[in-house]
């Protein structure tokens, strides 16, 4: 089963959100943009347990405006015959090409199967909640919009037993893994209601524990101690001369099965020399692994819609990657919400759902498109390598190549360390370089990556060179302005190397070159002491490009209080560029 369409209206931070997943969904976004609310919303409409109790919190209503209805509507596809027939009369049709509901179909005289090819049978469900002022709580339910008429306040509710037919699993990474507790994770999995050998084993354990505990009082010394306690009570309680062990026994947890089961904790032996250790002692990673694996083991996880919030918390990246990939394979559709952008490697670009929140608190969702052109495929490669670490950022700065990025990042660190100027990250600005995975040299890669980043809801700032050829330069500026929100251009004839050297005294340059050469055991192909002015700058710029790039070491080698003028200016512009659009000429 897959969600083909979801609409969230007036729920928590969402005034209105519509989304049409392509397949699986990798949910990322800025903090506070609503990842958890999205997962909760889907759980409300899909799980039969969501409306078990009336909603007493008004916080679920957007901006606490209780006059409007909460609505969470989903269109479910890839149903399979069992669900289709369970919901026969309520089925509807979905145009997979248009991504829209088919309200009616005209007949059919020459209707052909090719026309049917884009039509899929779907099930539409809607969760709604209405605040009842006199009761000070909300009434909520799930209905079939097909037969409901909100204008007439007439809703055809989905009976609970039917809601139970919908295969959905919520992976809960909070709480104890492998527990027998009341919410009975493990017992549910064993299928304790049916005929299994588990109940008999439980009984056996109970009796065994009772017997052993009862034997405690056979200890003569314990009996003696108990006798002393009982001594003054014999008369008032009318105990006569009965032995202590006839009057007192011990039972764990007062003999209640639930209590004993609660007390049971899994211990795990991963290496012989460590022996069995409680799961919690192995660290949060192992607990997280078990919780996720437990969800995968559920009978309904296969082909189900699996909802996971905050995936990867407490997991190391490699384990998280493995589990995410497994979830993606097993589930009909996984909605994996996470802060760990690197997990995006397991997903295709069109499976990204990035949530953003504007300064006025309004939320929006952005998703990647399936690549149809070569340019998009190339950009898709960037996505994985470049955008993943930036998923939680608000703005991205795209520079032409790795050296630009290294130099700007190092300059920013130096300014932060020496003058306390905040890092770009503090303003949720991430630095991406367009050239890293593209051999084309960068300048044509920027528009592609910028487009992609824009589609995912980033404020995009491009930092570009000013080519010597006027025509090419103009074209490049136009292209970049069409893709990015802001284009910051180095002065004419400047690339990153000259920008690094800008405003530095010859002496400072010579010292820094010497330090870099010494530290990295490289030798300039010229004698810095022998040249000066423009020539020194030209030769130094060339040297910076050698040995795979000495940009960052050079910036680092500048003495305290000395900064490249253009780098500083560029960083200043970046900080203001996050709220504007257009061309900035350095």
């Amino acid at each position, binding site marked *: 089963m897959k969600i083909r369409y979801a609409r969230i209206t007036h729920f928590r931070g969402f005034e209105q959100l519509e989304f049409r997943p392509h397949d699986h969904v990798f949910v990322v976004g800025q903090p506070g943009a609503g990842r958890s609310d999205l997962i909760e919303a889907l759980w409300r409409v899909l799980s039969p347990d969501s409306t078990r109790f009336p909603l007493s919190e008004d916080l679920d209503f957007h901006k606490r405006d209780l006059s409007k209805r909460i609505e969470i509507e989903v269109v479910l596809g890839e149903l399979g015959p*069992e669900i289709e027939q369970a919901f026969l*009369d309520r089925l509807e049709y979905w145009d997979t090409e248009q991504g829209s509901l088919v*309200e009616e*179909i005209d*007949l059919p005289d020459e209707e052909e199967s090719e026309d049917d090819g884009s039509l899929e049978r779907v099930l539409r469900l809607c969760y709604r909640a209405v605040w009842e002022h*006199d009761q000070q709580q909300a009434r909520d339910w799930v209905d079939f919009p097909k037969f409901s008429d909100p204008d007439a306040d007439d809703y055809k509710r989905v009976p609970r037993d039917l809601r139970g037919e919908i295969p959905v699993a919520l992976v809960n990474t909070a709480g104890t893994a492998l527990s027998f507790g009341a919410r009975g994770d493990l017992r549910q999995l064993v299928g304790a209601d049916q005929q299994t050998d588990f109940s008999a084993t439980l009984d056996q354990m109970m009796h065994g524990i009772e017997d052993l505990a009862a034997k405690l009082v056979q200890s003569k010394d314990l009996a003696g101690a108990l006798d002393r306690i009982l001594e003054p009570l014999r008369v008032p309680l009318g105990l006569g001369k009965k032995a202590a062990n006839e009057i007192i026994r011990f039972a764990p947890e007062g003999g209640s099965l639930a209590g004993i089961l609660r007390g049971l904790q899994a211990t795990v032996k991963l290496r012989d020399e460590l022996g069995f250790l409680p799961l919690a002692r192995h660290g949060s990673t192992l607990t997280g692994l078990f919780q996720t694996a437990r969800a995968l083991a559920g009978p309904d996880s296969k082909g189900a819609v699996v909802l996971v919030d905050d995936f990867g918390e407490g997991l190391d990246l490699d384990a998280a990657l493995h589990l995410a990939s497994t979830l993606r394979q097993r589930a009909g559709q996984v909605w994996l919400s996470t802060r760990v952008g690197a997990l995006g490697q397991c997903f295709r670009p069109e499976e990204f759902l990035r949530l953003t929140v504007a300064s006025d608190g309004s939320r929006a969702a952005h998703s990647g498109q399936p690549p149809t052109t070569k340019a998009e495929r190339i950009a898709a490669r960037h996505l994985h390598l470049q955008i993943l670490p930036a998923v939680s950022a608000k703005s991205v700065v795209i520079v032409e190549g790795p050296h630009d990025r290294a130099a700007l990042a190092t300059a920013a660190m130096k300014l932060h360390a020496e003058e306390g100027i905040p890092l770009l990250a503090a303003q949720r600005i991430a630095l991406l370089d367009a050239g890293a995975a593209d051999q084309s040299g960068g300048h044509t890669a920027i528009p592609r990556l910028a487009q992609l980043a824009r589609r995912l809801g980033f404020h995009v700032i491009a930092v570009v060179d000013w080519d010597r050829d006027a025509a090419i330069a103009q074209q490049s500026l136009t292209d970049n302005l069409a893709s990015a929100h802001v284009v910051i251009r180095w002065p004419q004839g400047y690339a990153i190397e000259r920008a690094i050297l800008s405003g530095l005294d010859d002496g400072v340059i010579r010292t820094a070159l010497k330090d870099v050469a010494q530290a990295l055991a490289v030798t300039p192909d010229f004698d810095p002491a022998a040249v000066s002015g423009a020539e020194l700058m030209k030769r130094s710029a060339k040297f910076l490009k050698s040995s795979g790039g000495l940009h960052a070491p050079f910036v680092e080698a500048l003495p305290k209080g000395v900064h490249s003028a253009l780098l500083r200016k560029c960083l200043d512009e970046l900080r203001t560029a996050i709220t504007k659009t257009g061309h900035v000429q350095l």
Partner: protein
Amino acid sequence: MKWEDLTPDQQQAVMATEPRVIVFGGAGSGKTTVALWGARHFLRSPNAKPWHRVLFLTFSRTAVREIARRSGRALTDVREKVEIHTFHAFANRMVTAFGRYAGLGRDLPPFRSDAEGKLLGKSARHLSYDDLLPLALKVIRTPRVRDLVGQRWPLVVCDEFQDTDNEQWELLVELAACGARLLMLADPNQMIYAAFLGDRGVGPHRVEGAIETADHVIDLGAPSHRDPTNVIPAMAAAIRRREFDHEAVEAALRGDRLRVHRAVPDDDLLAKIRQEVDDAWNRGHRSIGIFGHSNRSVAELSASLFAMGLDHVLVGLPEAHGEALAALEAACQFGAGHVDFEQVRLRLAVFLTASIRGSTVPELALGLKGATTLPPSLVERLNNVQRGLQQSAADGVENLVNAAMNLWPSLGIAAANRPWNQAARTFGALARQAQRRARARETDAFFTELARSVSDQRTETLFEGDGATGKSIQLMNFHQTKGREADVVILVYRDADWFGREQEPFPTNSRLLYVSLTRARQRNIVILPPTPHALVAPFADLPAVAVAPAPGRQQVPTGTSI
């Protein structure tokens, strides 16, 4: 009932797997039971997929449900997967669910009941009862619905197959074309609709044609499981053949399985019925069917029985029941200021039209609708009613509901009080339910709930035909008896009964008589008027026979024979 209790013939019918199977059997030979067992057999077979269901098409859902209920634990595990519908309810389901994908538009035209059609005329902007089956066929024939239908119902059972008309037969053929096996249950001797539905294609050719295309024909024969002694079926069969002097009839008289009360005048009728009812109860019988000839005579009888304190369920007049509910709701909606009084008058007109059978619209209905002038006295009473509703609404919902319930009686129209009063009781119950559901919410919520449940009930009466189950005394006309059974059946004939122009040997009426007589598990009681119609007059000439007591039998509580 256990598997071992089925006869070899019945077991064979249950196990049949051919695409088209006809099961013949006399009344009470267990055809419906066989079909339910067949459904179970299929649903528990390895071929059954989790999404499979069995569709049970019938003329009276209640009758099949009754049998399913009595078949006990055997069907428990598959009961949810056996879907029992009348033909029209099934058609309505298909049209409502998928009509919008078969060119009928997103918003289906509103449904117009027979009475509404009669009073307001037919129109293309409304759906009528007669439109449903052709539309359903259209829907099922679209490829996208066809797949679903074929996937869901690999087995379709048709009960009372001998009475299917052309459209119903076409629907069955279509379901078979989708991939369903057909299991047709038939008893040509019970064909009772041919007389007035002949123009729709009901007739002997149906069964004859089906035999030609059937892959397997099974005859369960005459033995009745309703009456294992076979005394009653044999007697009924003889009477159907007009052989009143047959030994089976004499045997029935001698065994006290048939009693005849001759020349009972109208004044004595109630006392006679009371006497037989008391006798049946004293003998431990639980269910009693009282069958009369016309709706009107049955309704009058019902009123009198109520008056003498004999509680019973009146089966029939279903449409009038639904229309009365709609009128009651309209009255409440008017009181609350949601609709005009015109609307109330229109609903009353429809109710009156539905209550009175016949092709013409009652004059008063036209007047209520506003097409003709009403007598001044009635106009005044309507004005009073109008004021009364408005005033009671001010005193709260409960008063409003009560005022609505008293509406029809206070108009002083002689007709249709019975269906109104029955519906009023139902309405009162619905209103209380709506109040509970609406809880402390605004009155608007109450009216929404009320409208919803009335609409559901009305739809039920329109499509499902009957509502009565389980009551110990059921009163109905002869045409509604099919598929039902009772320990004791009382057949009431009156001088005024009209049996059409049919002459001896009364082929159609005899079949109807046969159906009525075979409903009884223990005893038939025929009550004749002083000058009975030739159809039943031979009962009066039956010889007086000494009744042989059947010890042990009388005290055994029956009703669980299936």
